């Protein structure tokens, strides 16, 4: 048997054992069983699969990740030294488990609901079910089914009609070093009701040497005229596997702004599926990935223009150094009846070393005749004239390179509307690029 098949058998055995012991109400049991059944017929993808052509899962198969429940909670876990945001509601997860003691969520249950999933299924089961049933990603995806088969940990957010929470909602997922590598599936469910407006931040962070498999699945339902700013900030450990799934279902005139930042992780794969289901819905997706060392970061985006007058904007940037590898696949489907739609896609990559690698694939499928669609991909290096110009002003060569690399990232970061988040990310970029520079200067 192949290593992929071995891994699948091992995970399913562990899953069955986990399901036998797992607590949970009837709803959880039902959802888990259905996913478990689907797993019977799904294999792990290989590079022969077109969607996985540039991402080889071999390193993932070499680790035996323990299922949730067996991973020990971090002892004496303290938020004090973590870069959590002060001004927001907060939900804290450590090694995939919710920590109520460190979380700070509103108490008024008749307004905005921000709850751990385990609480939400007790009193708001219909609403949870509604999101699960309406917002679907790709069918037959082993990573989302694995996560669903052990559904328990996660977040449920409901922004009622015309409401605007007074603060952003921060979900902080921290993974610490443990004796055995662990599997951390988490679920983020968001329902933005009509006319509401909110900001949600998924913030992933891992201890330096921690090995784990973070498997978040995000499902977002947006009703008419709703607005949502959504951030996925990936600061995973450099040894972590981060395989995320996100699906957004957009109703009439809703507007989704997504920011996807990937700085950490050994192997990162984000699949994003946006369904512009009703007319006038708009999506804007921004991405920034920095792949250094032997990091592999793969973003796979599928935007489905399924209604007239829908619009999408994608602006993804990669900075790739050392033996890093970045992959971008941007599929845009404009269906026959989606007239007057507008799709723009830009992917720019900066290569900083000889052995850095980038694969970028725009895939436009357009079946309507009255639409605007464009895509552009560039792959380049730092500009010698710009480096020289900075040096003639007294700035050293490695500083000049760092400034220009930072500038490349800034074109994404500077567009972040929230000032606190913008400053946070600006510092994070500086730090990430600076760390690399100090390594190189020392060599």
């Amino acid at each position, binding site marked *: 048997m192949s290593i992929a098949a071995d891994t699948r058998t091992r995970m399913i055995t562990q899953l069955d054992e986990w399901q036998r012991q797992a607590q949970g109400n009837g709803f959880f049991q039902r959802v888990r069983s259905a996913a478990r059944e689907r797993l019977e017929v799904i294999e792990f993808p290989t590079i022969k699969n077109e969607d996985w052509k540039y991402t080889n899962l071999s390193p993932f198969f070499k680790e035996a990740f323990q299922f949730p429940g067996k991973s020990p909670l971090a002892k004496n876990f303290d938020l004090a030294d973590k870069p959590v945001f002060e001004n927001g509601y907060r939900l804290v997860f450590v090694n995939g488990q919710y920590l109520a003691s460190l979380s700070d969520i509103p108490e008024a249950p008749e307004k905005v609901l921000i709850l751990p999933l385990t609480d939400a299924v007790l009193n708001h089961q219909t609403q949870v079910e509604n999101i699960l049933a309406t917002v679907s990603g790709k069918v037959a995806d082993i990573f989302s089914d694995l996560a669903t088969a052990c559904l328990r940990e996660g977040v449920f957010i409901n922004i009622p009609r015309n409401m605007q929470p007074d603060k952003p909602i921060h979900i902080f997922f921290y993974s610490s070093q443990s004796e055995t590598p662990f599997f951390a599936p988490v679920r983020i469910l968001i329902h933005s009701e009509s006319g509401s407006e909110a900001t949600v931040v998924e913030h992933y962070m891992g201890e330096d040497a921690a090995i784990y498999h973070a498997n978040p699945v995000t499902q977002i339902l947006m009703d008419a005229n709703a607005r949502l700013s959504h951030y996925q900030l990936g600061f995973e450990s450099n040894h972590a596997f981060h395989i995320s799934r996100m699906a957004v279902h957009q109703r009439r005139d809703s507007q989704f702004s997504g920011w996807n930042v990937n700085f950490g992780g050994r192997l990162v794969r984000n699949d994003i599926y946006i369904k512009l289901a009703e007319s006038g819905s708009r999506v804007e997706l921004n991405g920034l990935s920095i792949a250094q060392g032997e990091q592999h970061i793969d973003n796979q985006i599928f935007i489905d223009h399924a209604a007239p007058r829908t619009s999408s904007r994608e602006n993804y940037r990669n900075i790739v150094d050392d033996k890093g590898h970045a992959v971008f696949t941007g599929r845009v489907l404009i269906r026959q009846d989606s007239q007057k739609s507008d799709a723009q896609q830009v992917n720019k990559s900066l290569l900083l070393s000889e052995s850095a690698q980038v694969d970028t694939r725009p895939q436009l499928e357009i079946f309507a005749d009255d639409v605007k669609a464009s895509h552009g991909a560039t792959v380049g290096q730092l500009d010698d004239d710009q480096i*020289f110009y900075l040096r003639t002003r007294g700035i050293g060569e490695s500083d000049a390179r760092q400034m220009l690399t*930072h500038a490349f990232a800034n074109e994404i970061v500077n567009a972040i509307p929230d000032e606190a988040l913008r400053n946070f990310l600006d510092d994070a970029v500086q730090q990430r690029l600076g760390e690399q520079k100090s390594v190189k200067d020392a060599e």
Partner: protein
Amino acid sequence: MLSIKNLQVSVEGNPILKGLNLEIKAGEIHAIMGPNGSGKSTLSHILAGRPGYEVTGGEVHYQGKNLFDLNPEERARAGIFLAFQYPIEIPGVNNTSFLKKAVNEIRKHHGQEELDAVDFLQMIKAKMKLVGMDPAFLRRPVNEGFSGGEKKRNEILQMAVLEPTLGILDETDSGLDIDALKTVAEGVNKLRTKENAFIVVTHYQRLLDYIIPDFVHVLSGGKIVKSGGKELALELEEKGYDWLPQIAEAV
């Protein structure tokens, strides 16, 4: 301050400078004129340390040191400043952080304390007034979307901020209207002291109406073929370059 002896430079195997000699002392302004393709820009670039040029002979000493031992940033820190003919646009880097970094690198080199944001802003606003620049430019990315005149002003602003010992103006007058030209010239004149020197590379005499040179040199075929006082520039304007016997020979 600067001593160039028999300098020979090639680009991709083609000789451009063929034995150039020039002596510059503190307090002096030297104008370098000459027809297109005479090697004027090559001279500016090689003094600033641009990669891609091969020195095949001769030597250049700056403040007693072999210039070719210094990389571009070391030359800048030692007081050499090149105002570019075509200033480079740098999207994503704002003028403030760029200038602050440059100033502080040079201050560090001289053992001075780095300027903090407040002191820097105070200093930079005064300098902007000097060169007639709107403070709004501080927030914009370096040279991006600047008009030709704005770019040149930005070069002079940088020069005013970095206070070089040897300022090299590479065709700073090209593409400037007369008002911008006057502002640029005023900027240079205000920066002029007994301790510093300027090389003004220009194709036209008109800049020299406002920046009065002590010496005028004609560069042709990779050599200085004639040197004189400021009146030489006027003569060149009137007669062109063809009357110079050496040029006739070179052609």
